[in-house]
């Protein structure tokens, strides 16, 4: 478990394939997605689209991604591992 890319953990690497599946419909530019893909710069998502995407991720993992946390989520790898309670 060395050499994990910055912004990811081994757990997020574990959810990464499914995360990318969820994000793919929002990938209007058809770029290749990985942990380093930036939501704003690469995917160019506007704020409304971000809200829909966040809702999809929240529903998939039954978690909360608070709105105030979103500015910290720059890349796909920044999406935190779901912590089920």
């Amino acid at each position, binding site marked *: 478990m060395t050499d994990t890319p910055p912004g990811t953990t081994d757990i997020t690497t574990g959810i990464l394939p499914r995360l990318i599946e969820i994000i793919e419909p929002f990938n209007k530019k058809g770029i290749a997605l990985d942990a380093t893909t930036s939501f704003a710069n690469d995917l160019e998502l*506007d*704020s*409304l689209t971000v*809200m829909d995407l966040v*809702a999809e991720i*929240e*529903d998939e993992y*039954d*978690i*909360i991604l*608070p*709105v*105030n*946390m979103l500015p910290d989520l720059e890349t796909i790898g920044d999406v935190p591992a779901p912590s089920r*309670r």
Partner: protein
Amino acid sequence: MATAPLPEEAPAPADLFDKFQPLIDQYEGLMASGLRDPFHLKMDKILSPTRAIVGNREIMLVGTYNYMGMTFDPDVVAAGKRALDEFGAGTTGSRVLNGTYQGHAECEAALRDFYQMDHAMVFSTGYQANLGLMSALAGRGDYIILDADSHASIYDGCAMGNADIVRFRHNDVADLEKRLRRVPEGAGKLVVLEGVYSMVGDVAPLAEMVAVAKAAGAMVAVDEAHAMGFFGENGRGVFEAAGVEADVDFVVGTFSKSVGTVGGFIVSNHPKFDVLRFVSRPYVYTASLPPAVVACSAASIRKLMHARDKRAHLWAASRRMHSGLRAAGFTLGTETAESAIIAVNMPDQETSARMWTALIEEGVYVNMVPPQATPGLHLLRCSLCAEHSLDDVDEIIARFRRAAATADLPLSG
């Protein structure tokens, strides 16, 4: 002797306005089309709650949120004149320093009577009331759960505080319930709702939403800015009409709509409510309302308690406007007249601006909603006033038809 290297050309300093260039371009494009500027209309005279003079022509005001037409009520105006004479032009101070006069106390008493609640707190604007509630009440580790279509003042209050912010889909009870389930057990929760949403004038299913919020152990705040005066038996708002008065912890409101002045407030039965006067920064760090404003407001609030006939007339005018525009072939934001806001959908920004200009030429003022307020929607928003006669409504509809022809707006049916 070594010569110092020539300094490299310093890069031009960044202009902080560059980020607004797309908006500047959009606005200049709109103006270059030769249409009137919908965002800088100057009213030269105000004749009544429903009539103004712009330049040398009289226009009907159909976008003022002046729902109950209290701006020229003789009792309201007289109260203001008296206060201006007796207490002066302004207070020059915060509510917690030298800015609480007898008039501010009387205004809070009027609100307690109007809402039949124990506590009332008057802010200098409605925007600040929301800012003050959201930012002070929910702290680190608490959660604010709000409707995605919430007013900017609610979002801004959330951004100012330290709580975690969770959005649910607009007016979606099941989505609210689902998100409440995900909040960690034991965390403080505030659910924020609005009685009437101002963009298209739709009403929240408050009975269901408040029940879901209470079942999850959340406190509930309802913003009744666009409902005060004409929803419910006593005009308190949608929460009264929905029969959930006992379960709503905070009602936020404004004086700048049905009350006819400016200012904001929160009312509550919570026994510790008044501590907000110390911890709510938008309350503490701003000057209080001028004496004339609180005097007008208190007089207006007391009259609104008994304004049954005006209420009934406003509803009749709103329903006539909705059905008339619909019959004329306009596409409206709601299926029926849910409130006194009737939003007319436009196909695009250009048509919207053409239609707005054509309406002004016909002598009708409505709001052209700035596109950033409703992404993906282009709305011309009408709001009715209890002082609009039914003949006024018919005249407005006739002018809408003529304006649509001028603006090349296709009508259905």
